[in-house]
């Protein structure tokens, strides 16, 4: 077992390379800079291309071009940069191109700061760009998981011809943890892409990559085709982790870094006699409603914890549909909820008196 200590940001790069990605287009931004630094060094060594674009707007459109040409391609940024990519993302969805986009989220709104945050949940899951579309959104919670998620991200992107966003935060990006690289990489053969615009070279039909659809009836058809794809993804691709859920009465819901804090809370609560559990959404979209349906009758309530003013909690409410109480605890603007404060909130919810 060869374990190495690796930064989360580097793991995004290492995982991408192991998943067969050879093209990166991006524009630097904190707190994900180690990722471009890593790829700027590594990609040329293995015959790939690292290209620094003049902006995020340009970067996402380079991704569009490379994806159209049939490549496994990715970009990476942090909140303000991802906002600038919204038009391009909508185009990539509209043209049904696969690619991977990483958002190492930071505190907002505006310039905000570079501290860890989850305030871009809505943007990622509901669609920050225009039109009806969805991204598949993955939320790893450890450096090891970043590696496996990158493979998953490229595979899902190719399978559904849809961009996949992988979200982290400053903590996940900057922290180092041991990772085991054995058995990662290259498992699924990259699918052939007969639709790619690679030059005809003997092909009979021209390939066209396009999201223009001037006739409403036809554009509606396109949209319904997207909707069918999204329905299929919702049925097949919900992913989540359960922690102490089997006999849980009080369920924490948290993703990414915060889910690690929540695990600490579950441990603490269990020690002190509260039957707590955790649902950690791994796919933020499709949101794992199956996990909620499973436990809805057994539990007494949900406590959603986020590094935001409350975004995922809406999806929790949409799953729960009033059948159980749903509470929210959030720290916006770059603050991280502590085990202690979440535990206090849980106790309140569970009706346990705080001593002292």
């Amino acid at each position: 077992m060869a374990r190495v200590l690796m930064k989360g940001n580097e793991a995004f790069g290492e995982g991408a390379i192991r998943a067969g990605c050879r093209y990166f287009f991006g524009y630097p931004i904190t707190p994900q800079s180690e990722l471009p630094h890593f790829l700027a060094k590594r990609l040329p060594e293995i015959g790939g291309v690292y290209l620094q674009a003049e902006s995020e707007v340009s970067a996402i459109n380079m991704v569009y071009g490379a994806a159209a040409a049939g490549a496994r391609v990715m970009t990476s940024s942090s909140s303000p940069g991802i906002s600038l990519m919204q038009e391009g993302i909508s185009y990539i969805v509209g043209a049904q191109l696969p690619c991977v986009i990483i958002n190492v989220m930071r505190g907002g709104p505006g310039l905000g700061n570079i501290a860890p945050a989850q305030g871009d949940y809505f943007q990622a899951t509901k669609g920050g760009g225009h039109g009806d579309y969805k991204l598949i959104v993955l939320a790893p919670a450890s450096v090891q998981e970043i590696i496996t998620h990158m493979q998953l991200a490229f595979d899902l992107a190719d399978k559904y011809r849809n961009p996949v966003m992988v979200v982290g935060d400053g903590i996940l990006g900057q922290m180092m943890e041991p990772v085991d690289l054995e058995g990662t990489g290259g498992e699924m053969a990259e699918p052939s892409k007969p639709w790619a615009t690679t030059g005809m070279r003997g092909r009979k039909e021209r390939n066209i990559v396009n999201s223009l659809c001037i006739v409403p009836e036809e554009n509606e058809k396109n949209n319904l085709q997207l909707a069918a794809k999204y329905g299929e993804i919702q049925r097949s691709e919900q992913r989540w982790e359960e922690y102490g859920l089997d006999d849980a009465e009080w369920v924490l819901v948290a993703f990414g870094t915060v889910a690690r804090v929540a695990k600490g809370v579950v441990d603490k609560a269990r020690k002190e006699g509260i039957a707590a559990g955790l649902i950690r959404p791994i796919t933020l979209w499709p949101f794992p409603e199956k996990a909620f349906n499973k436990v809805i009758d057994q539990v007494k309530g949900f406590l959603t914890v986020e590094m935001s003013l409350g975004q995922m909690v809406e999806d929790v409410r949409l799953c729960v549909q009033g059948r159980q109480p749903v509470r929210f605890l959030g720290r916006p603007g770059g603050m991280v909820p502590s085990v202690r404060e979440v535990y206090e909130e849980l106790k309140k919810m569970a009706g346990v008196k705080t001593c002292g």
Partner: protein
Amino acid sequence: MAKIFQRPAALTGKAFHYCPGCTHGIVHRIIAQCIDELGIREDTIGVCPVGCSVFAYEYFNCDMIEAAHGRAPAVATGVKRVLPDRVVFTYQGDGDLAAIGTAEVVHAAARGEKITTIFINNAVFGMTGGQMAPTTLVGQKTTTTPKGRDRETTGSPLRVAELLSTVEGAVYVARVSVHNPASVIRAKKAIKKAFEVQLQGLGFAIVEVLSTCPTNWGLSPVEALEWLEKNMVPIFPLGEFRKPAEWDKNGTGEGASC
């Protein structure tokens, strides 16, 4: 029977949707002629803009990509980096390239990206209803300069060929026109050179083509050509602004008069 003039193979059979007399059509055709002559149709990937030529993918008989407004050079960069042995060109209007896409074209040039850009300067946003473009002439009336473009509040026309000539990676920069047969032939020569630059792997190549928009200029097609010659050419001088240094040595450039 020998063909004197025939529809190029690099055009599909589809009829253009352009307004009567719009010179977008002429430029499409001469690009297609160049592709035919160079024998590169099956290696070529074109990138269309958003503008009146947004449907160009229906006309060029090769693989085509529709880019977001202004981003064709970035899209072309993505393609070319993945497929360095293919030929990639963009076709862009003056709203697309000289307004919203300014950064993209300047930096494709600065990187010396090995792509070919055909830039249609018709001094107006055609598609969206005749608004001012960065290339609109001072005094020219448009739907957003109803009293004529005012230098004091909106500045004066951006000269893209001159701007990009200061960029080292832009190894071929020319401005041509299509207002009469001689200028059309010169335009075709320049476009062919711009493809040759790419085939020779020398860097970024751009041809700015002065073009008409009879509809938004409120002129007949013939008047529009005359207006172009009389008003645009003095402001946007024609010529080759940059040629590859290599050509001066081995004489591939066929003289500066285009």
